[in-house]
């Protein structure tokens, strides 16, 4: 395992009195695809939001490229190259597709941003076609693509994806996973949080299974896929 680009140690996150995350540690090697899976309320999204600086953890240390970033606010992390694609996509519906993409380059110079937007249009021709439409008029799948594309404009070193397949038709889910695979092939490190554990593990190098705020299983993804305990608890035994 090469040096981790991101490492999380002893993370604890509370909402009021509710402990959403009790004790989570994981490492993400450079260039890998790591997935966090688990049932509802296991704390996956809270972990991701704490890592992105959107939530202040109660305890624990988050290191990004060797620097302690535990107390960094979200905008500083984005600038440093840690970018999230949030659950529910969070596109700006009343702005156009092009405007949404422009916002992705908030911390980049104008020329770098425009170059990146052109690059993204090449990868997602459908967004180029619809660049002048209001983002709210896109279908669910297109909105998910826009959310991913918008994050790419920020030139992330590590991309965090939260439930990218939620609420999408099976056909579109396939497409989303293909895009994720392409992104990681360009060298970007990816952290994927997914409800669809089987799909996520099939795509990932390493997996961490979260259960009530703690890591219950971890290891190379293909091993987890074959682990009977994991299968029974999370993947369903039909």
């Amino acid at each position, binding site marked *: 395992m090469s040096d981790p680009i991101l490492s999380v140690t002893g993370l604890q996150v509370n*909402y*009021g009195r*509710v402990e959403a995350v009790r004790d989570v540690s994981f490492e993400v090697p450079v260039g890998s695809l790591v997935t966090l899976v688990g*049932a*509802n*309320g296991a704390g996956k999204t809270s972990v991701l939001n704490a890592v992105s600086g959107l939530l202040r953890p109660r305890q624990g240390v988050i290191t990004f490229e060797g620097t302690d970033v535990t107390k960094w606010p979200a905008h500083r992390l984005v600038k440093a190259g840690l970018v999230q694609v949030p659950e529910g996509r969070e596109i700006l519906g009343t702005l156009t597709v092009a405007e949404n993409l422009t916002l992705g380059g908030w911390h980049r110079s104008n020329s770098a941003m425009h170059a990146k937007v052109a690059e993204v249009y090449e990868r997602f021709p459908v967004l180029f076609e619809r660049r002048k439409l209001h983002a709210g008029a896109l*279908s*669910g*799948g297109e909105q998910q693509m826009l959310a991913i594309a918008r994050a790419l404009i920020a030139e992330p070193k590590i991309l965090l994806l939260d*439930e990218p397949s*939620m*609420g*999408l*038709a*099976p*056909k*579109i*889910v*396939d*497409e989303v*996973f*293909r895009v994720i695979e392409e992104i990681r092939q360009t060298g970007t490190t990816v952290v994927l949080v997914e*409800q*669809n*554990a*089987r*799909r996520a593990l*099939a795509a990932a190098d390493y997996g961490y299974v979260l259960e009530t705020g703690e890591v219950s299983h971890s290891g190379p993804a293909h091993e987890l896929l074959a682990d009977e305990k994991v*299968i029974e*608890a*999370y*993947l*369903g*035994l*039909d």
Partner: protein
Amino acid sequence: MIAEYSSLITLIALTAILAYSFYAVLIAGQLSLAQVGLASLAAFTSALVVPSEPLFGFIPPLVIGIVFGMFVGAFAAFILGLPVIRLRGVFLAIATLAFGEMVRIFLINQTWTNGAQGLSFAKLVGPGVAWIALIVVAYWFWRLSGSRLGRAFAAIREDELAATTMGIDVPRYRMASFVIAGAVAGLYGVLLAHFSRFADPNEFSFTAAVDGLVTAVVGGVTLFIGPVLGSAFLSLLPEVQRAIGIDAGWIRPTISGVLLLVVILFLPGGLSGLIPVRKSAKRLNVDPSFQPTLPALPAVGSELVSLSGLGKSYGGVHAVQSVDLTVNAGEVLGLIGPNGAGKTTLVNMVTGLTPPTTGTGNVLGVPLTASTKAHRLAQAGVARTFQQIKLFNRLSALENVLVGGYRITQDTLLRRLFFLPSARRLEREAVAMASAQLVRVGLGEKAANAAGDLSYGDQRRLEIARALASHPSLLVLDEPAAGMNHVEAASLSELIRSLAADGIAVLVIEHNVRMMLATCDRIMVLNFGEIIAFGEPSEIARDPRVLEAYLGSAGSDEDVEAASVLASETLAHVVDDRAAEHPEHDGAAAADDATTPEENR
């Protein structure tokens, strides 16, 4: 000693009554600043009718004034409510503020009010009368808080749309809270005028309205005692400051301002948030002897929904085109299709949230027209959940389900006012019915938790329990398994089958195709607002158009055909499994074939 403070004691009571008139609208999620305007109308008009001698020799003049003032306040609130009740939030606040100011300017320009010079009143109110009035008002709100009416107000405050789909006639209830608040404001106006013996319209200004609102919010709206606490705190504060010798003109308002800021920033529930409360509506009651007998559901197989050519277009764009459909009692009907295919629009039409633009429909005897109200359909027996969860977040799980029982429970406010035994019995029955639904979806342990604190999957289950609490004939579930894993989805599927076995017709939208194939009796597939397939799960799984439009395949174009074949085979496999009711097989390998055909390549 008492005499020295008598006017302070009276003012605490009067300020609390004003705060109750704000409380009455705040508990239903509305913000009205018209309250002092209504009070002023009541005060000045009462001067026209209050006699100097008891009426018929025994009805005291003040009683006449109070009754008249409350009527004026309620009536004026009703008239004001007619145009403004549809406004929300800040807009409602500003409209009512404008009304208050208009009343003030109007009264100043009238001769019978003596204009800005002000009017004299008889001194009829002292500490005794003021506190008796306050106690009556507080008692009324105390008894309201646990009644069905009180729960309906809370539901509207938390989520209007969800409240509508529980069968609550939201505009009517919002108006009711407006009128109640108006009556209390009228009471305040009459009492204040006959306490201070003099009133001019300028006293009933914007500043006075803001003071009343501040009192209510500082006291808190989570508990009926809030307005009294707020009034006592804010009235005593200057007295305490005077007593300890802080008297410079500016120090007092500074300290008051700082304290107000501290309360609002650090005590989210206001002062009443400090009081630990024992809420009876947090405990389950699973004693079957309290379960009332409910009316029977329609006979299995009888037609509940019939749609003919039903469609909806938004400015020329057809969200749903011409749907013909019948749904019978006891069947599970699935609705699948790509995002934006019109599934949610269709169920919104069936539940009365979206009026159809073409075609006709009849749901449980209620015709679907442009003017069909969602609460009417809910009262007829339609219940639903939402794609974007809509719970009453600050209410407990059990309270959520109690609101769900609105349709089949009776109002208890009057009985509660007089502590009739039947009130207790009705409440126990309501709690017992709600508890049974919570237990049924597996949330018995979490009855006391606030709905907003539950995990995503639990919130989905709670929404189903809330829908079931209305004893529906038709249950509509919009993506109930979103965010659930295979295990959770399997138990949801079981629950749906058992509901259908009870005779409920269930209409489900869901992307989890595997679950749908295993759960539904019939499946309708929509694409671009059109029905592209409709039939039994086994037919749907083999339909090439469905595979093309919805299930599709990953990979490049040349893979499409092969993948479709593969997908149809694996889907068929799933269907066969269900038909054979043979749960034990090599699940790990087959489990996600239905959704991820390309992995088997």
